[in-house]
């Protein structure tokens, strides 16, 4: 006992370290018991709407319509055998807890496409960058449990992106994808696309969903 007291006197930060370790392990234990494992998040990628119509509203002229059809294939191996996860502690004034970030890449079957005017451009993969907010402990229907950012990527059969992994040493642009459809899903039960954006050869346009029934092309 005397020896123990001696150690504590000799290391004034000892108790602090113990407290921090305790908090961390409690938090990790909570994450292990409550948070789902990586395959859970793959479900969102596979539930991305297979067909959707959008338009870019244009004032004083006909709106520009576009649509896509896709079919999910296999994950991008080996990195995305399962979605990647990272837990980030929240910072005050946010509620105590943590955000879970997740990322996934799944290739698309040949025949998947985005129709832009008279061009039918192959869609090649889905990239998901998501956030699971359920571990923040703020049940509120105005604050989504999930925020799923969906990229439907065209013309890239390697699905390398959104950032050039070796940039700037590998040259060219910082970003890799010149054409994609982007949207955000805030509720995986309905997978409703919101905050739609079309990037076409680096130029970007804000779009809106067009649901005319049945998901058929307009």
């Amino acid at each position, binding site marked *: 006992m005397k020896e123990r007291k001696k150690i504590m006197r000799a290391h004034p930060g000892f108790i602090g370290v113990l407290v921090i370790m305790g908090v961390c392990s409690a938090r990790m234990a909570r994450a292990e018991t409550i948070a789902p494992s990586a395959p859970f998040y793959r479900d969102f990628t596979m539930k991305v709407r297979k067909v959707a119509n959008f338009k870019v*509203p244009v004032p004083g002229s006909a709106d520009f319509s576009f649509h896509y059809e896709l079919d999910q294939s296999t994950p991008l191996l080996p990195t995305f055998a399962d979605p990647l996860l990272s837990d980030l502690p929240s910072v005050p004034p946010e509620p105590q807890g943590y955000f879970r970030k997740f990322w996934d890449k799944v290739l698309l079957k040949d025949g998947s496409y985005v129709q832009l005017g008279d061009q039918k451009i192959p869609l090649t993969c889905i990239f998901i960058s998501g956030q699971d907010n359920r571990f923040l402990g703020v*049940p*509120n*229907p*105005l*604050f*989504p*449990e999930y925020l799923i950012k969906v990229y439907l990527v065209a013309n890239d059969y390697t699905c390398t992106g959104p950032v050039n992994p070796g940039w700037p040493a590998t040259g060219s642009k910082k970003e890799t994808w010149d054409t994609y459809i982007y949207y955000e899903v*805030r*509720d995986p*039960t*309905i997978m*409703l*696309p*919101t905050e739609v954006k079309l990037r076409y050869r680096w130029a970007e346009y804000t779009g*809106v*969903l*067009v*649901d*005319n*029934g*049945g998901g058929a092309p307009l």
Partner: protein
Amino acid sequence: MKISNIIRIFVLSFLVSAGAMNAASAEPVWYPLPPEAYKFGQRYPDAQNLLFAFDYGHALVYERLLLRRGTIPNPEAFEKQLIQDVLKILKNPPHIKVEEQDIAPNYVFTFPLTVNLFDWSHMLHQFVLDILATSVDRGDGMKARVNEIFKQYKANTPVVITDQCKTMLFMDGHYFSKAFRSQYPSFNLLIWSYHWFQIKLYEALMKPAQQERDVAVNKVTQKFWDLLSNLPDSADFDMMPETAVEAPTFAAMFPRIPSAFDNNHMLHDITSDILTSDKVSRDQIRTEAVRVSRMDQDPAAFKSAKCPADKP
């Protein structure tokens, strides 16, 4: 600049901003949210998610009627598809409040005043439910709190639907009236079932004991599904359900609120009629939407002589 002047400017700017915070905003944003906001859903998640699904369903039907206007060769098939799509959402409802803008961007853009009125009124609907579901005091305290929220609602005059009783002619007395009901009778009954459910929740939450309220909310939810089980036969409504009739206990405690809700529900039906009737040309839609929305705000328009709340 003297320090006293700096203090004076600081105090003045504080008062101006405080005044602005207290003033009602024309935008349908309720800020700050009442402390009870969305607590109903924590106790009754299934019922709350259904309410979110109703918002989705309303927006979806308006959007499709607008997008497919004049190009619906087979209304029966259109209705069948619509019901099928909405039932999917009702059976697997969203867990968050979905922005109408995301479901129905064309409708929102074409009916700005109507959407403002709906948004503001739906917040009143929601917060009344939240208070009724959570208030520990089931008497004067709860009554005062609901009335406080109602007062805040009414302070935002640019987007308030009147709480003056209107006759059913407000809904059915226009040159385009009943178009939706006659073309899409099953879907119309689905919408009336939504409204019935909302109203019945108020009545269920008036029960004095927590356990009774829980049982009553479950019963209302079950009955709602029964109403949808075999449309149109399963929902036997001859007319839009009225709050004072379906929720008499609620109406007795809050005599002005039922009319505010009914006037909202009537405007939903009117919007459906405008979008369905071929007597309203595409160019007239915006104008008609503003005209009827203004009527919904005007206590003198279609004023009913039989308003229980007006009795001395």
